[in-house]
């Protein structure tokens, strides 16, 4: 099964990204590279700057210094709203709009930003919901769904805009354990379908099996990055080894 027709995914690079909130230097020169269609998993202790890094990649937070490139081209001078339509983001807490049906959650941006007609937007949304296994929930309100279902709606909502890159911010951390698998399944399918993805996660199984690159972040920098086998079997940095010892 393919979750989406991703014909247009692009490569992504973050170069020397710096960001400080006041005296708190959250990102201290982050480099990250994902090839077109690749999946990078970002792991690391909480507070290491993983979520903040994701938000600088779609410029929900503007970096102080450094660059973000899609297909080798800097996006920092683009219109940030247009950029965010190209780079989808899925949140830990889903952030669905509770006052709208599942279907309207997915069609809202199609209608208002992509200017699709009602029928066309609904058709795209229904296809997308079908692909995450929730075609039957189109008329439900988000609060009537389980966390796992809500997260899959959030993924469908982001995918409906046909993004070229997808970012996942601990997409399964807020879910009950039995609901994690469904969401990871959707993400796995998306990765195999050739979507370029950056996945901040604590799911080491997912990182090991799905990622092309695993980056270990600590205190605002990527300490070590490489293919999953090297990170999980041959970690060099002592802090990474300590981290792995704790989470595995």
């Amino acid at each position, binding site marked *: *099964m393919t979750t989406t027709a991703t014909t247009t995914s692009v490569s992504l690079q973050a170069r020397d990204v710096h960001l400080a909130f006041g005296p708190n230097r959250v990102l201290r020169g982050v480099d990250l590279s994902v090839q077109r269609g690749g999946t990078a998993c970002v792991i690391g202790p909480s507070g290491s700057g993983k979520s903040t890094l994701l938000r600088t990649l*779609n410029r*929900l937070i503007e970096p102080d210094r450094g660059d973000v490139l899609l297909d080798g081209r800097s996006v920092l001078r683009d219109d940030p*709203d*247009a*950029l*965010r*339509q190209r780079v*989808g*983001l899925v*949140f830990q*807490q889903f*952030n*669905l*709009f*509770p*006052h709208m049906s599942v279907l309207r959650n997915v069609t*809202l*941006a199609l209608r*208002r*930003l992509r200017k699709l007609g009602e029928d066309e937007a609904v058709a795209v949304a229904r296809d997308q919901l079908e692909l*995450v*296994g*929730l075609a*039957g*929930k189109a008329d439900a*309100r988000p*609060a*009537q*769904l*389980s*966390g*796992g*279902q809500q997260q899959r709606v959030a993924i469908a*909502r*982001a995918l409906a*805009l046909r993004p070229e890159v997808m970012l996942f911010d601990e997409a399964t951390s807020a879910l009950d354990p*039995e*609901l*994690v*698998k*469904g969401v*990871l*399944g*959707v993400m*796995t*399918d998306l990765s*195999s379908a050739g979507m370029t993805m950056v996945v901040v996660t604590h*799911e*080491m*199984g*997912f990182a*090991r*099996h*799905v990622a092309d690159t695993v980056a270990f972040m600590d205190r605002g920098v990527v300490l070590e990055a490489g293919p999953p086998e090297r990170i999980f079997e041959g970690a060099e940095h002592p802090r990474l080894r300590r981290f792995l010892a704790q989470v*595995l």
Partner: protein
Amino acid sequence: MDPLSTLWETFFDADAMREALPEMLTVGLPNTLLLAASAALLGTVFGLLLAVAGISRSRWLRWPARVYTDVFRGLPAAATILLIGVGLAPLGMRVWGPDPYPLGVLALSLIAAAYIGEIFRSGIQSVEAAQLEGARALGFSWADAMRLVIIPQGIRRVLPAWVNQLIALIKDSSLVYFLGLVASQRELFRIGQDYAATTGNESALLLAGLFYLALTVPLTHVVNWIDRRLRNGRPATAPADDEDDDLALAGAPEGDRR
């Protein structure tokens, strides 16, 4: 006549009520409804603008909204109505003539806007920041995110308080009698008061009071109904499992999670 039945006659004289009833129905009630409804409409629109200005990132919008709200919430309604109705009368004279009715509507609207603005602002500010982030992440501008996602949720949360404000507005509409309305413009209170003044019997005023209650008491029940729906409308518990799951979990990592 014994004092008790005199007292009864003072408030519940059926003949006095019957005499006032036709004018209350044909003149007083329509005027009260017109005053309250038009002020509700204007006050809600202006209140929404005040709320948005009040949460704006520009201090040049925030400050005037703040000052306006403090002033119009802080003044007695009677004083505001007189100040506007009398003070702006020369201006009104040029625009639509000597009629004080529009100024009454304006004064009621300006007062209502101050309260409604605060109600809407608190509602909008109660919406979680994550909702704004969710909308911005889809590519919506700040203004679109506010308009489509944040403001509708915020207003929904404060609908009961908004209806309460409409109740206050119906009652405050009685104050425009200060402005000296002509016979056909009199609202419920003024008609009741006029009958009471000419007959020395309060029954007509009491009848006016019954009209107000007939309008306001159902609205208080509307408040309670909205309140209940807001609280119970969304089920608190979600289904425990993804029973509809027809996903092919190809390649889903399993057993490797510890």
